[in-house]
């Protein structure tokens, strides 16, 4: 029989693993462990792919997504496109603990977080500003737009849709891998 308890997480984010383990060892629930572990990654800004100051969008803003699920009750708390709040997994836990809903998004999720006592602050850092500036310098490449004008593979926006969409190819889902840009 394999030993329990157990913590497993994607990527070699060891401080997050350790934080989750510490929570379990201290008598916390698996939910507490997941919340603590993910929160540690948010503080550490793991790999630039978690937490504030990473992955700026087309406007240069960092927004956060998080979700937590209880395998006993099947309860879920989730937030997406969360603005100005660093502790996204904490807000997801608050959605689970303090609402009968499952998933809050955008500005309204941020207002919910504020009402639950989470600190509202800018998620921009010098690093995210630098990433954004470089992207602008590269004429907004890489770019997720398609079938718009001007050509999004060569130019920044604003964009408008082009008429007469080309036939969709299944290979259009294949993209170049950026190990520091992932969900």
């Amino acid at each position, binding site marked *: 029989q394999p030993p329990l308890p157990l913590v497993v997480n994607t990527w070699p984010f060891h401080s997050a693993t*350790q934080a989750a383990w510490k929570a379990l060892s201290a008598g916390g629930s698996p939910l507490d462990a997941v919340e603590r572990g993910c929160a540690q990654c948010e503080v550490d800004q793991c790999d630039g792919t978690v937490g504030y100051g990473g992955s700026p969008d087309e406007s240069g803003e960092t927004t956060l997504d998080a979700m937590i699920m209880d*395998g006993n009750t099947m309860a879920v708390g989730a937030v997406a496109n969360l603005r100005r709040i660093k502790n996204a997994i904490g807000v997801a836990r608050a959605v689970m603990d303090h609402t009968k809903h499952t998933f809050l998004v955008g500005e309204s999720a941020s207002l919910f977080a504020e009402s639950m006592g989470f600190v509202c602050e800018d998620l921009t850092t010098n690093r995210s500003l630098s990433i954004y500036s470089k992207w602008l310098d590269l004429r907004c490449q890489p770019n997720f737009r398609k079938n718009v004008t001007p050509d999004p593979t060569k130019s920044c926006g604003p964009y408008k849709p082009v008429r007469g969409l080309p036939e969709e190819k299944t290979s259009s889902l294949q993209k170049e891998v950026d190990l520091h840009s992932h969900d």
Partner: protein
Amino acid sequence: TIGMIAVDRNGNVATGTSTNGASHKIPGRVGDSPVIGAGSYADSLVGGAAATGDGDTMMRFLPSYQAVENMRLGADPTTACQKAIDRIQKRIPVFFGAIICANRTGSYGAACSKAPGFTQFHYSVFKPDLSQPLEEIVDCL
């Protein structure tokens, strides 16, 4: 992105994810991480799973839900993860993605999809008798 599975000594399972998403995304875009069954899924009767990678692709296949269902049908965690990746590859032969799986008795595994610049996936584990996290590596399919 981090995706995490925690199992206590009684086999209670929880999962979670946290991310700032894809760089240079269109404002308003949300990936797979906060989507139930895509970013992660948990069922204490079976186990849990969490995914990472290109969320625009992965969220269309609910790989975490699929992996947990694979375990429910008797697959060990590694096989469950591999089958979830394989199901996506059947439609999208090359994509950037990985998934971790653990069952309620403490077995765990992972799988990933080989893509240019991504041939192995590293993940982190803590279990009894370890004094620090263990880094596991899996070759991508």
